[in-house]
Structures are given as C-alpha cells and as structure tokens.
C-alpha cells in the first residue's frame, strides 16, 4: 500500500481542468435562482442524489464525478447521505409512480433554500419511458425543477458543467 500511496504523491494528479460552465444551463438557472439565497449558502453545496426510476445509467456517471479525474469536491460540491443535509436534490429517471411519493417526501425533507437538478433525458419528460402506466413523467411533474442536465446519460463533464452553473 505504501508504494501505491507514494506513487500518488510523486505523480502528477489525474484531475483535469474544470470545464466551462454550460451557457444554456446558466441561462436556465438565472431565471430560477434567487441571488440572495446563493449569497447565504456561499460557494459550497451539499447534494442529495435521488434515483426516482432511472435505469442506473445516470447513477454510474454521477458516481464518476467522485473519481480522481473529475474530483467534484474541489468545487465545494459534495454528496451527502440525508436530504436534511442537502442544498441540492439531484434527481434521475422518469419518475415512476412507485417512487412519486418517496421523491415528494425527500423534497419535503430538504430544508429551504433548495434547488432541484433533474439529470438525464428521462428526468426531463420521461424520455423513452413516457406513456407507460407505471411512469408519472419528468421530475418537474412532481417537484419544481431549477436545472435540467440532458443526456442519456449525461457524461461526467456535462454534469460538471451543469453543476458549475449552479455556483456561477
């Protein structure tokens, strides 16, 4: 283990330069986010991820944000275990009817001020799963959404661009 740790010390970090904040994401956000609330929260955001019915593809890429290449925590962003600790809910999937109540209750358990980031094409409008008896629709049909990050699934870079826009 010492060898691996030592190598990590002497080698250049893998972490890559931050991507530029996504322009359209900023525009969408500007409409929705209250500047005063942002000032109160400073530049650090705690994120609670909620899978409301995804195929798990989006989760894999959200996970990747924590790896050495993207290193999410350098931006003051971190994933937390409870909605009680969260400023941001990051919601994936078409919201299934079986998860609708759980998502609503997670939202209610998150203290104000809070933002909801809907991740993936399904979270936008149900995507390929819309029209099913078991699907309620996009995230916005259940809780108010501040930012959509599109993609199937969005790459970690696209996710970073969207999240940086939250802090811009």
């Amino acid at each position, binding site marked *: 283990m010492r060898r691996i740790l030592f190598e990590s010390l002497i080698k250049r970090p893998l972490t890559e330069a931050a991507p530029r904040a996504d322009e359209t994401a900023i525009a969408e956000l500007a409409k929705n986010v209250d500047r005063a609330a942002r000032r109160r929260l400073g530049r650090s955001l705690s994120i609670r991820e909620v899978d409301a019915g995804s195929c798990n593809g989006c989760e894999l890429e959200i996970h990747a944000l924590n790896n050495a290449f993207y290193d999410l925590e350098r931006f003051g962003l971190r994933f937390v275990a409870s909605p009680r600790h969260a400023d941001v809910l990051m919601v994936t999937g078409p919201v299934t009817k079986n998860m609708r109540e759980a998502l609503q209750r997670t939202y209610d358990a998150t203290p104000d001020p809070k933002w909801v980031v809907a991740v993936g094409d399904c979270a936008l409008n149900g995507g*390929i799963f819309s029209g099913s008896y078991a699907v309620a629709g996009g995230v916005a049909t259940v809780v108010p959404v501040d930012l959509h990050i599109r993609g199937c699934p969005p790459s970690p870079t696209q996710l970073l661009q969207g999240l940086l826009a939250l802090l811009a």
Partner: protein
Amino acid sequence: MPSLADTIEGRRIEAHRPRPRIVVNAAGWSAAANRMAAGEWTLLGLWGAIACVHMAVMGEGAEIAVLTLECADGEYPSVGAVHPPAIRFERAIRDLYGLIPLGLPDTRPWLDLGFWEVTHPLAVQPGAAVAPTPFPFLPSEGGGLHQVPVGPVHAGIIEPGHFRFTANGERIVRLEQRLGYVHKGIEHLMTGASLDKAAQLAGRASGDSTVAYALAFAHAVEAALELTVPPRAILLRALMAELERIANHFGDFGAICNDASFAVMHAQCGILREQTLRTADACFGHRLVMDRIVPGGVARDIATRGLDQVRMLIGEARARFPHLVELYDKTASLQDRTVGTGILHPELARQFGAGGYVGRASGRAFDARKAPGYAPYGWLSFYVSTLEAGDVNARVLIRIREIEQSLAMIEQILHELPHGPVAATFYPEARSGEGLGLVEGFRGDVFAWIAIEAGTVTRCHLRDPSWFQWPLLEAVIEDNIVADFPLCNKSFNCSYSGHDL
C-alpha cells in the same frame, strides 16, 4: 441424442427458434416444476402473456426449452409451490396479468405497490385501481428483536428499494426485500413497438448492463428472424461486452473495499474504470456503449484509432491491476471483513440457478459464454473459475479472475478482428417468428425472449440475473451483523432496474 425439447410432451410451435416452443397441459407443466424441484432442471425464466404463461428451463449440457401453458380461465398450477425460485416471478405475473398461480405459498403483491392507478396493466382488460394497503412483512418472533427499515431512498448514489431488517442487537435474524420501485413498464412499452424502439428499451433495462441486454435482445431477434450476423460485428460485440464487464468489475472491486472503509482501493479502481469508459467512448462514441448493438450487427464500426486506444487500456490495466490485487491479498484488516462474511451455500446457488460471480463463488460453474455458448466465445480461449467458499471474499476473487480473463480475451479479439461489414441488411416488416437469447453479462446471465409479427414486437420478456440473486442475498445475510450488510450487498451488486423493469 434427443434434445431437451424433444423429451417434453406437447404441441410444438415451430416458429420458435432455434428449437420449437412446446405447449404443454397442466400435468406437463407440473411435471416440469417437479423436475426443477428435484434438481434435474434449472429455472431460466417464467413470464406471463395474454391467457398463457411461459417457462424457460435448462437441462443437462445447458440445453434450453421453452414451455407454454394456456390458461384461458386465468389460473395455472404454481411452480413456486414446489420450487421456491419461481415464487417472485409468479407474484409479478399476477400483478401484471392477473393470472392466478394455484397453490402459490406467498400471495402478496410483488411489483405492484398500489400506485399504478390500474391493476393487472398488461391484461386484456386491466382492472380498476385499488388503494394501497399496508404491506405485511414476514414476521420474526423472539426476545429483543427490533426492525430497521431502509429505503426506498438509500443513503448513497444507488437505486431505490426497501430493505426490512429484523435484528437482535447487531445480529440480523431476517432481511426481507421489497422491490418494484423503479418499475417502468418496459414490457408494456415494448408490446407493439418497432424493433428499433424495443432495442433501445432493452438497452435501458439496466444501465450498467446495457451491452448485455442489447446483445441478448439482438440474439433473440436474430434467432426469431433467422438472421446471420457478420463476423466483424460478432467480434466487436464481444469487445463491447468485455469492456462492459471489466468496467463493472473494476467499479465493484473498489466499491466493495470502500464498504470496508478501504478508500484507497476505491480511488485506484475508479481510475481504471474511468479509463475503460473513456476507451469505450473513443471506440464506439458512448461511454456505456448504449444503442451500439442492434439486431443484425452493430450500429457503427469501431473508430479508426479505437484499436490503439484499447491496446493502451490493456497495457495500463496490466501494469496497475496486479498491484491492487496484491494490496487486497496482503491487507489483513480488509480480509478480516470479507473472508467468512455473507456465505452463500453451494446448494442454494444451485437450486436458484444463481448466475455470475454469485454462482461461481459458490461452486456453480455456469457461464453462458461457455454453455450454451455463443459466438465468438467458442473461438476464444478463456477459462471460467469457480470457488466453493461463497463468501464476500470469493465473490471479489471471482471478479479479479474475470478481469484477467477478459483482458486476455480482448487481446485475442483485437488480433482476430476481420475486415468486412458490421451489420446484416434485413427488412423487418416482412418477418415474423419467436426466439430467445441468453447472454453472460457482468452480473450473470441475461435472458431475452421475443415474439415478432411482421416486424412488430408482440411480446418481449427480459429476465435479469438479479431475479435469482436477490432472494439469495436475503439468505446469506442471516446471522451476519447489520454493519456487514453493505459489504454483502455490494458483493452481490444486484440490479434494481433490471429486476423491476
């Protein structure tokens, strides 16, 4: 030697390929259930359709047969009554189709949590909505017991499901799962869909196994419509499948260690996983390789510089991975958590037909790439390793060996890759038939069954390996401590979405 299908009495449906489907009577259906209960056959899948139930079984030599029982009166003899691995399937079939399994010991709903605003949504005449009722969890009796409810929203970045633990102090006496939260109605959406749309849906049954699902689906379609896939496409598919396997195994290896708070392994494996996904992206234009396998071949050829990227990945993995394996082997505090934890007895693995590392860590040598087998794996040299210990450690070691085998296989694929077309041309509008596919995903065998009429899907069923692994997780956790559940759970890494569909 007669094939398995030839030994079963009944009416033969020749449109089902490669072997005919057999319509049996109730006695034949129950006889099949008894042969599984006796350990002669393994249950491969059990699914409903309009006024009938289908069952896929596997006999000696991994021969597969599909049986059908017509049940116009809405009832059929329960398989779960004699063969427990069928119980959850029959609960799901009743939720979706309203077909009643006579004699099923557990009559509680499975996928229907009471929120669909309809009952039996896939039946010809769906029923009116019924208000959700409290779910009766199985009882545990004894002094000093307490319950720990977990989920559906979990603490990590993972899929939703509910776990109900009953514990005495730290010791778990019973775990009961309640799933269905991510049920999206995929089989409903597939009914009446074009092959293109259905292939996309299959690729989104479980995102971590999108290649395996797309491949199983493509195999089923190709069997049904008797399509021949060009050799280059066959090898490119295997390249995609092995990249998916190592990406997931790298991720799991790190994540299991992370659940024992050994974060350095998580970080190092995360690098290898990311490099694998970037290589996949460079080769096929998608990090998870979604929508690249289509019936008849692959949607696009590998990028010009793709092969070099893959060679670099192999070199990188060969240079780094052995050190991580050595670190795992030599860290006593980590082994203390994984050795002897969450033991799955080989007998249970055999009874449930547990696939993937779950089965192979408990003595079940089955690997769909070897038997029944499919191209190109017959041309490639690799071995399937098994262990008997059945603990978390064994499931880690199986993954490690599979990574090594897959790396060697990818090298062979690069070496063998012929020139030529990457897809067969066909006109689905003119074609009909039924077929099945069984593909070894990273987690185990993914089963797909399809019926096509004039290029339109009339019924498609997908069965995730997790159907047989989830119930075993309930069994292995008994008598372990609550704090070891994440380790056991991650060592299984069952799919929620693939199971709930």
